[in-house]
């Protein structure tokens, strides 16, 4: 598991497909999530594109593409039931799966220890 400064987690799987979600820390900071909008499957995205909109009871925020790649799957369950993002942000409530050219793009990201230090935990 790798982490970004935007509070996303990335979990590399087979065939260069990376599962992306937001961290428990991010979900806690957002408060109760009431709306999620995900990109369409097949979209080619560039790092830092705004590809997800997430709204909590407090405010709207964007989630940026953490790496370049193609969206190959999205988690419609969190669109139907946004509260799942608060219940299991680092598990069932993943956001999308993105296929990257080369998994080495994850090398520069934080590991769990570095992320914990980043959020001052």
């Amino acid at each position, binding site marked *: 598991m790798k982490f970004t400064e935007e509070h996303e987690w990335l979990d590399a799987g087979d065939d260069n497909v990376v599962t992306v979600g937001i961290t428990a820390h991010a979900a806690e900071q957002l*408060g109760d999530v*009431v*709306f999620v909008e995900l990109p369409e499957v097949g979209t080619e995205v560039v790092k830092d594109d705004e590809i997800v*909109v997430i709204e909590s*009871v407090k*405010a*709207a925020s964007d989630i940026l593409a953490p790496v370049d790649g193609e969206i190959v799957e999205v988690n419609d369950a969190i*669109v139907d039931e*946004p509260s799942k993002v608060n219940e299991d942000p680092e598990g069932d409530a993943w956001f999308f799966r993105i296929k990257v050219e080369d998994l080495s793009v994850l090398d520069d990201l934080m590991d769990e220890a570095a992320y914990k230090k980043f959020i001052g935990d």
Partner: protein
Amino acid sequence: MAEVDELQHTVLNGLHRALGAKMVPFAGYEMPVQYPLGVMKEHLHTRDAAGLFDVSHMGQVVLRGDGVAEALESLVPVDVVGLPEGRQRYAFFTNDDGGIEDDLMIANRGDHLFLVVNAARKDADLARLRAALEPRGITVELLEDRALLALQGPQAETVLADHNPDVAEMRFMDVTTLPLGGAECWISRSGYTGEDGFEISMPAAAAEDLARALLADERVEAIGLGARDSLRLEAGLCLYGHDIDGGTTPAAARLGWAIQKVRRRDGDREGGFPGADLVLSELENGAAMARVGLRPDGRAPMREGTPLFEAEESDTPVGEVTSGGFGPTVGAPVAMGYVPATLATADTRLWGEVRGRRLPVTVAKLPFVAPGFKR
């Protein structure tokens, strides 16, 4: 923007922190926006049981003197003279253009009038009151040594009755003085959530003990400003500085119900408040714009500032959302905003622009949630 260390604290600041509240700046005060329960659950708990709110940041003002009610009528378009002792009424200060300078509660407590005004408008309201009333021999006193708690929800009565059974006798908008836990409290049966409930003014020194005693009751949870906002929005109640301000008139804000006959055209005490000609003429002839409830079709909230369009392709917005978010009890996004009176009928279809896209939204009757007042 005031620095964090310049923010004022209510007497319950330490209690909020001890309860794990997330504190934010609000109207010059450091206030709890939510507790560990979270906005959604705090909101639902208030509708289901009882919620305790610290509203000590609001201004508590006492007016005294001969003819105080007549004098106050020179600033507000409501019937103050006819307000019986032991009763309270919603009101607003108007300006010369008929706009609303603040909304407030006025209580007749026998030998004085007791006002509760918005925290952000405290200074402006006091200046207005002093300028108009002091020359008429009325004293205007801001009470800085009293706290204000609101206990709201369907179980508020049974909870508070455990501390003093006499509160159960009160009806919506009654005000009285009763002891709670040894402190002399000024209690009104009112609030700003759309639920039955009470607002309790008490000496600041007694506030933490009473708050802790109420919170010790398992039916009661501490509720922050986040849920206070979604509760009042679902109840269709205006937030000053958002849904009403110096540029919105009572008729446009659909607050004409608060202006009694006696202050209207041909009433015994017609007019006599700032902007009366315009305010009263609009009440008879209608205002160009109207505050309406709005229900977005999808799940995306339409927040304050969302422009509203008559058609999906129109170039120019016809109105704007003034309060919007997710309604936990409604289970969907809800909003209020201003649209031309011709588009203000329930079920009118409009479009709101969210993140560059036009999304359908329907004009809806207010409130979104039926009130639980004990009339």
